[in-house]
Each structure stands twice: as C-alpha cells, then as structure tokens.
C-alpha cells in the first residue's frame, strides 16, 4: 500500500509539470501586454521628452520587477531569422512587429537597423520644441511613428512613409529638426527591402538560455508558495484567492453536504421500492432534475422568485451589512442571499448522487447473499442498511474524488450569475483582464486537488472493498 502511494505521488510530478507548461503557454500567448496592463499607461501621452523618458523608465523597471525581461523558457526552437536576444525588446507589440518583419525578410540585422532608426526618429521628435503652427503636424508625426511601430505590411509602411514625406514634413520646423533621422529611417527600410534572405526561415535553430528564464522563475516561486501579485490591483494572489475561496468553499461544501444527506436515503429508498409507481415518479423526476442545466434554473429562479417576479429572494451579491454589524445579523443576511445559489448548486448533484446510489443498490440487492439474509428472516431494514448499504457505496466513492476540485471550481457559473465574489468571479475577471498570475494559480490548484481527489478515492475503494489491492499486480 505504502509503495503504491509513493508510486502514485511520484506520477504526480510529470502530470503537474505538463499542466504548468500548458498554463504557461496559454499565458504567454494571451493578447495584450501585461506590463502595460499593470501600469495602466496611457500610451502616447502628449508630453515632453522628460515625461516620455520617465514613462519608459517605469515601464522598464516594472518589466524587470515582473521578470518579463527574461527569456521565456530554458531553450527556444525557432528559425534562423529570429535572434536569440528577441526577448530583450521591451514592448510586446514591437516585438511582434519585429518578428513579423524578420520572418518576412530573413535578416535580423537589417530589421534591427530599421528598428533603431525608427527609435532615433522618435527620440528626435520628442526633443523638438513646439511652436504654435507645428503642434498639429507634430501630433500627426507621432501618430505616424506609432503606426510604424506596430505595422509590418509593406503596403501600410510605404503609405505611412509617403504620408510623412508629403504632408507632415512640409512643416518647416519639423523638416529642419528631423529630416536627417527620417532619411536614415527610409534608407534602413529600403535596405531591408532589398537585402532579403527569404530561405532563412526554413533553417531551424535552437537557442539555449539556461535557468534564468520566466518559466523557471515562476515555477520555482510557485513551489516556494509565492504565487505573485495580481496585475489588476497589485494585491498578492494568495490573499485574493483566499478571500474568494472562502465563499466558494462555503457554497460548495454546504451544497455537497445537503446533497448527500438527501440523496443517499432517497437513492436507497427508490432502489428498495423498485417497480412501485411512486418510485417511477421519483426516478423520472430525478432524471429530469439531473438534465436541467443549472444556469437555466438559476435564470428562471431570478426571473420568478427574485427581482423580476415575486421578489422573495435577493439575487445579487451577499448583502450590504458592514463588518461592524452583529455576527448573527450578518450570518442571516448572508444565508438569505445564499439560498437561491445553494439551491441551484445542490439539485443537480443531489439528483445525480441519488441515481448513482440507486443503481449501486439495485446491483447489490440482486446478489445471493442478500437473498440468504432475507431468507433467514432478517428484517428488511437490517438487510438493506447492514448488509447491502456498505457494498452499494462503490459508485458514490467515484464521486467523492471530485469533492476537492469541486470546492474550488464547482460553483463557477452559479457564482457568476448571482454575483458572489468567489472563485468563479475571480477567475473570470482575471481572464478578462489578462491577469495571468491568478489564472495560473487557480488552474494549478484545481489540478492538484483533482489528482489528490483521485488518489483519495482509490484509497477509499481499498478500504471499503478489501478485495481491491494495490500491492499485487498480475
């Protein structure tokens, strides 16, 4: 048994690694620039060179602080057009533009010249002291440069260049100040177009980065229990998840307890009464309940018992009593708010568990030893509860494995519908806001809990049915 446990725990490791890799891949492919989200920067601004510099500086520090200036992974497997230092380019949008360009034209050196000349042009623009008549052209020029920073199609670039040449640089002040830089930029662009190496993208390359990379940094912190800080409000992820988990746990655990308390006796009873009309009614009812989508039931409840209809129950949040209110007042207020969500959570699992219980019981009641027990004159109740019950629990145990992950993610949709600040809301808003430290942590935790749940179920199997043994394998 012990060696079996050890073996199972050992198998956890590759599984968790795979899941962590998967979540990591999702997060780096997510659209949007996390550093920018966190700084909540207004890109562009109107400001002077000083402001731009400070902006850039805060961006760089933040990026460094979050570890986004590191390579992504231990190695990268790409084509020869991409350099090994691509990760050093700060902004995600710029990085994407440069990748596209070098993929298209094949020579990184030319692309990098192009980028640097564009940067020089931008720096020059910022330095210009504005006079009245060049305010508008200057703004247009800035916009044009921003367009160049994010576009990689030949057509778009050349029209933008033409636009700068013909419209904006007609302004004397601008022409005087940045004609040089602009010409350099155009030269770099032409060089890029002429000096191509298209076949480069078909040459595979592997770059080795070593341990100092984003994934390593994240996973080692995760193992040490540091889950990072939320991009949205800079609170530690663990405290945010802790707050949310409280509500999800309250909801899920109470619903599980209620469901089991109703479902097991009901399941047993309908198994004993098999064939009676009352039982048929109950079974059909259970099947229908089981098939009802719970988000539909939630919507209906809100419509008819909540705000839209009879207005018996609150349908939103957890009540408005402050922290200072007496405990019991707050308790009742919250309980009142939780009635509808709890109902929605409970009915489906309760219907499902009773159906399982019924099935398990029916299988057992057909067996010979039950007939023997009946034949020797034992009371029906004794036969059912003492002889059959324990053995009919097998299918229920399979379900037990899912209790752990359900405590985290079981009430996802219901929480969203009833605006309860639990894990569902937290995860959904984190996904919308690209707040990946939270998404990461939630996914990893649910995965770990699922694995643990499966293990616990296996152990319970062995406990209930001694015939199951993990030590002997044929």
């Amino acid at each position, binding site marked *: 048994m012990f060696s079996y446990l050890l073996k199972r725990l050992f198998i956890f490791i590759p599984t968790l690694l795979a899941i962590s890799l998967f979540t990591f891949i*999702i997060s780096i492919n997510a659209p949007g620039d996390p550093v920018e989200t966190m700084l909540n920067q207004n890109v562009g601004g109107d400001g002077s060179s000083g402001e731009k510099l400070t902006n850039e500086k805060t961006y760089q520090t933040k990026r460094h602080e979050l570890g986004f200036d590191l390579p992504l992974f231990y190695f990268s*497997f790409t084509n020869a057009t991409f350099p090994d230092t691509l990760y050093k380019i700060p902004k995600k949008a710029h990085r994407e533009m440069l990748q596209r360009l070098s993929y298209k034209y094949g020579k990184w050196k030319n692309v990098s010249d192009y980028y640097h000349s564009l940067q020089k042009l931008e720096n020059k623009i910022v330095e210009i002291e504005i006079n009245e008549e060049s305010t508008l052209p200057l703004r247009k020029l800035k916009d044009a440069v921003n367009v160049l920073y994010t576009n990689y199609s030949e057509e778009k670039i050349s029209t933008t260049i033409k636009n700068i040449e013909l419209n904006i640089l007609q302004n004397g002040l601008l022409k005087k100040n940045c004609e040089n830089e602009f010409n350099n930029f155009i030269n770099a662009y032409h060089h890029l177009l002429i000096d191509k190496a298209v076949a480069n993208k078909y040459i595979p390359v592997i770059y080795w980065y070593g341990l100092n990379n984003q994934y390593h940094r994240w996973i080692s912190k995760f193992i040490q229990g540091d889950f990072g800080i939320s991009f949205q409000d800079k609170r530690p992820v663990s405290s945010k998840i802790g707050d949310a988990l409280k509500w999800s746990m309250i909801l899920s655990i109470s619903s599980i307890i209620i469901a089991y308390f109703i479902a097991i006796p009901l399941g047993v009873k309908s198994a004993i009464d098999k064939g009676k009309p009352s039982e048929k009614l109950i079974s059909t009812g259970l099947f229908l309940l089981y098939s009802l989508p719970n988000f539909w039931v939630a919507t209906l409840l809100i419509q008819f018992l909540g705000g839209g209809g009879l207005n018996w129950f609150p349908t939103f949040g957890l009540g408005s009593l402050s922290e200072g209110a007496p405990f019991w007042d707050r308790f009742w207020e919250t309980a009142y708010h939780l009635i509808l969500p709890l109902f929605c959570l409970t009915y489906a699992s309760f219907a499902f568990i009773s159906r399982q219980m019924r099935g398990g019981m029916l299988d057992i009641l057909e067996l010979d030893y039950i007939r023997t027990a009946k034949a020797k004159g034992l009371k029906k109740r004794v036969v059912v509860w003492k002889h059959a019950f324990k053995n009919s629990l097998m299918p229920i145990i399979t379900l037990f494995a899912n209790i752990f992950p359900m405590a985290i993610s079981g009430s996802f949709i219901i929480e969203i519908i009833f605006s309860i600040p639990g894990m569902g809301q937290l995860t959904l808003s984190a996904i919308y806001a690209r707040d990946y430290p939270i998404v990461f942590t939630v996914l990893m935790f649910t995965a770990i809990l699922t694995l643990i749940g499966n293990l616990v179920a296996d152990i319970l199997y062995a406990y209930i049915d001694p015939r199951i043994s993990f030590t002997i394998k044929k």
Partner: protein
Amino acid sequence: MNFIKSIVFRTKVKEEKALHLSNEREEFTGKENESYWRVVKKQFQKNKIAVWSLRIVYLFIIIAILADFLANEKPIAVKYNGNIYFPIFKEYVVDLGLSKWDKELVNVSWKELNYEWKILPLIPYLPKNIDFLNTSVSPFDEQQVISKKWKHWLGTDALGHDVLAGMIHGTRIALLVGIISMGIAALIGIFFGAIAGYYGDDQLKMSISSIILYSVGFVIALFYAFGARAYVLADALGNSFGNFLLELIISILLFLGILLVFQFFSFLLKKIPFLFQPITIPVDIIISRLIEVVVSIPRLFLIISIAAVVAKPSIFMVMMIIGLTTWTGIARFTRAELLRIRNLEYIEAAKALGYKEFRIIIKHALPNALSPILISIAFGIASAILIESTLSFIGIGVPAETITWGSLLAAARQDASAWWLAIFPGFAIFITVTIYNLIGEGLTDAMNPKLKQ
C-alpha cells in the same frame, strides 16, 4: 459547472459498466444466430423513451437543415415585375459564387417590395433582423405588426430580435456543436485509445534506429509544418475559419509527409544490425498519463481560458476547443475495450496470417469496440451542447453577433422581467441535452445482455 462535472462522473461510472457488459457479450450473441447489432437495435426499439428521443433528434436535424426556409427575411418564392424568383435558393447559389443577384434585387428591403404574389417563410425574420417598433415584447403583449403573419410568437429581446427566429437558427449551431466537437473528440480519442489499448505496455517494439529517426523526424516535421508556417496559420485564422482549416490541413499533410520520408530512412537503416535492437515502448503508460493531465484540469476552466486567449472568437473555434478537450472519455473507453480484444483468439489468428497491425486495428479490433464508444459519444454530445451554451451564456468565445440558445438565454439576465427570454431558449437547451442523455441511456440498456428477454 456542477452539471457538466456530473456528466464526467457519469461517463466514468458508465465506463465500468460498459466494460463489464462487453465481457459478457460474446456468449450472449453466440447462443442465438442473430448479429450483435441486430439484437442491440431490437433492444433499443423496445425502449419507447429512447426511440422518441431519437425521433426528436431527427426533427431537430430537419429544423436545422431547413432553418433558412423556416425563418428568413426573404420570401421563399415571389412574383415580382412579372418574373418568378426563389430568393432563398438564389442566396445559396450566390453564396457559392455560381450566380449573381439581378441588378434590381441588390440591396433591396425584401419586406417592402411590391410583389404580385409571394410565399413567405413560417417566420418572416432572421435572427439578426431588428424590429424597432417591438423591443422587449412578450408573446402576450400587444405588438405593433402589420398582420398576424408578422407577429413575434415568442417575443423579442431588448433590441427587437425575434426570439423564435433565433431559436430556429440556434438549432443549427447546437447540433453542429454536438457533431463537430464530438467528431474531433472521437478522432483523437479513438486514435490514442486504440494505440494505448492495442499495444499496451509490452507490444510496441521499435528498433533504436527508428526511435531516433522518428523523434528527429517528429521535431523537424513540427518545425516545417507548424513552426515555419506559424504566421501563415495565424493570418488565415484572422481571415476566416474556412481559410484556417485549409491551411491547417496543409500543415498536417506536410507533417505526415515529412514523417513518411523519415520512415523511408528508417527502412534503409534497418540494414545496420547494431542499430536494430528492439526496445519496448510503454505506450499505454504514456497515453494514460496524457489523459490524466487533460482530465485533471477542470474542463470548463480549461475551455474558458483557451477561448479567452483566442484572438478572433468564432463558433467553430469553440467547437474545436471542446473537441480538443473532451476526447479523454472516448480514449478511455477505446483503450479499455482494445486491452480486452487484443487478447482474443481472432486477433492472434489475424496476426498469424501476417496482416499489418494497422489493418488489424482498423478492420478487426476497432469494430468490436464500437458499442462503448457510441455510448460515450451520445453522452459527449449532450455535454458538448451544454458547454457551448454555458460559454455563450457567460459570453466567452462565441462572437456577439452569433445567436445561439445560450446567448438568447443570456439576454434574460439583462432584463429581469423578460420571462420569455428565460423560458424558451433554456427549454430548448434542456430538451436537447435530455434527449441525448436518454439516447445514451437507451444505448447502454440495449447493449446490456442482462436485460435481454
């Protein structure tokens, strides 16, 4: 979530049952001179509820196919300026690029033309049509319409979209979600399950040379088929889903082609005796771990996080994601069945006859593993439809302009008094999920020899 989970539990339990019953299958088909599938069919037909569920599925399929003729802004047939037109047919032809609209019919409002006569569809609205005069009307409200023909039988939403039209066209999406996502899941699941089950941990032997060649070939094929084409694929996805599918197929063909080349090399290398030492590969362990990884992430979380990352949401993307994440159930069934079948005598006979293993798996082993796969596909369709409607209900992954049952139901959240928005679309989801579950149950019972009378 709870509910979706329960379907997952249920398939697990079903899996055990299905295994159990398939073990008993041989004896019971052997006794009578009837083919196994005939018995199953007979048993299934005895189950009135399942038969009726199947009939409702047929009805839904008909509605889905005829959706354009049942609810459309264009008339089915008109006489206009002395000519007879069939605008809806015509639209199909135009969409296929085979014809063009006549000049006077381009950009016309079909509702306002003066026809000599016309045959209108049952519901004269498309889901996207907006009726400004009747916003948020219930079926029993006074509606400002020309005649009864134009009445909104199931009401409208806050913008004036006709609910019934939305539900008719939503049927198409619901059924497509079931078919396409389960099609993808079945392909992947049967493939992995068959390999894991047939070879187990001890049957797949490969020489060192081919292992090396295959792994090198795999990496290189991955590079040329997907790495070097990454931007082509991404741009195609930005373009349209059909385009993406085309490029994806090209990539996959490229991938397989490169692997074939490497297989040819491995054939050459076989001449070198040193490299031709066979090693056993534990495919079963590898694939079982893979399944465990996918299963241990909660499915809805997984789908939501992928769907939120996809740059351009589309309903087909959702179907693909559902398919790519729900294959594990089918893979488990197939694996368990093939683990049993591979030890049967007829497989040994096939091996002794010198058949290729590929042929044995496809032609001899898989057909006998079909019944549990079918059962899990039926339950899988139910859960796929449920997942899709959940996603559209919370507004993730499905673009706003696509009208599905879930998105119609979501409109009820904005308007707490619009009971018709809550009842009808939800009921459609409920019915569809229920009938697929009932068919699944019916199949399970039909394949259970214990009940045979």
